[in-house]
């Protein structure tokens, strides 16, 4: 079995088509989030927006391409531990990700 079939090698995914592409997914704990907006500021994909007013301000993941590149920089900078990446981006076909599994912290061997 080839790692990429010829069909996959020759097909460039249409980036904004959800049939081809899985973008990064965040789990945002809205009980912890206070809408400070630091994550939205540093997000390299500008995938996070702050919605709501006053006390209801919360971070939300945007749905349009371009999107979350699952770098987890937001998780690192968030003081309240309110969000983290749970699904990695994978655009499929020519850009299909190989040899990757679930998300874990650094492991002590």
């Amino acid at each position, binding site marked *: 079995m080839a790692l990429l079939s010829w069909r996959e090698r020759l097909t*460039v*995914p*249409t*980036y*904004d088509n959800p049939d081809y*592409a899985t973008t990064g997914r965040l789990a945002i704990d809205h009980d912890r989030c206070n809408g400070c907006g*630091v994550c939205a*500021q*540093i997000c*390299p*994909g*500008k995938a996070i927006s702050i919605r709501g007013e006053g006390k209801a301000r919360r971070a939300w993941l945007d749905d349009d*391409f*371009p*999107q979350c*590149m699952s*770098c*987890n*920089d937001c*998780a*690192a*900078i968030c*003081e309240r531990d309110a969000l*983290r*990446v749970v699904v*990695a*981006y994978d*655009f499929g076909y*020519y*850009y299909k990700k190989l*040899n*990757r*599994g*679930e*998300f*874990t*912290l*650094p*492991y*002590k*061997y």
Partner: protein
Amino acid sequence: MDETATVETTDAGPVTGGDWNPVERLILERRSVRNFKDKQVPEYMVRRMLEAARFAPSAGNAQPWKFVVIRDKEIIDEMERDIVRWCKIFKFFIDWRTSPLGRRAAWLLSQISIRVKSNQLHPIPFGAICLIAEGKLGAFHGAPTVILLLEDRRGVSRPQVDIGCCGQNMVLAANSMGLGTCWIGFVELLKYGLKWRRRFGVEFPYRFCEAIVVGFPVGDPNGMIEREVMEVDWYEDGGKKAVVQGRNDGTA
């Protein structure tokens, strides 16, 4: 005496399951920074970064790099403006969602361009081109210091790999001094047109490759995060085993 230190190491070296040593911790906690304070980085810190770069490994000890340090806000702003201009031009032709050429024509152009420049137009930089063109994402993230890493094309075998080695030395040295850094691949766009090549003297054998922006981070961007576990093939004792890095798979 620190008791944990004696638990973690023996005379033979670190023990299995021990705590991270300072270098490991620095590597694991380092994150890219995209929001900088207005304060300029002291010159001696940049010099120390460059010194760390000088001692990086390179193929055949060719050291195929040249550094250009830019700490002039006007020059950085002008570079940023030109990068935005190029992003707008590319977006005009290949962003099928907004191109005035029409969805179908732009989609076809993008399909051709992506096949020609499959690394530069990977979905992630493609998205970044659109964001930079729309003014939503900064190219240099407001950093006070930009270090260009020019590639000497006459280096041994793969000079760009050596650029990566010396850049990582700089980034880790900067991090250890409390600075934040981010790799900026978009400086490559400055190769289009003669302006910046003339201004920075980027002619054969040099070419634009990467840049690292440096500054004091806003907040605390560092910390350990989760990443995908990775499959590794492992050949030992006459056989092959598949090792999954990042978890206790009973083999280590």
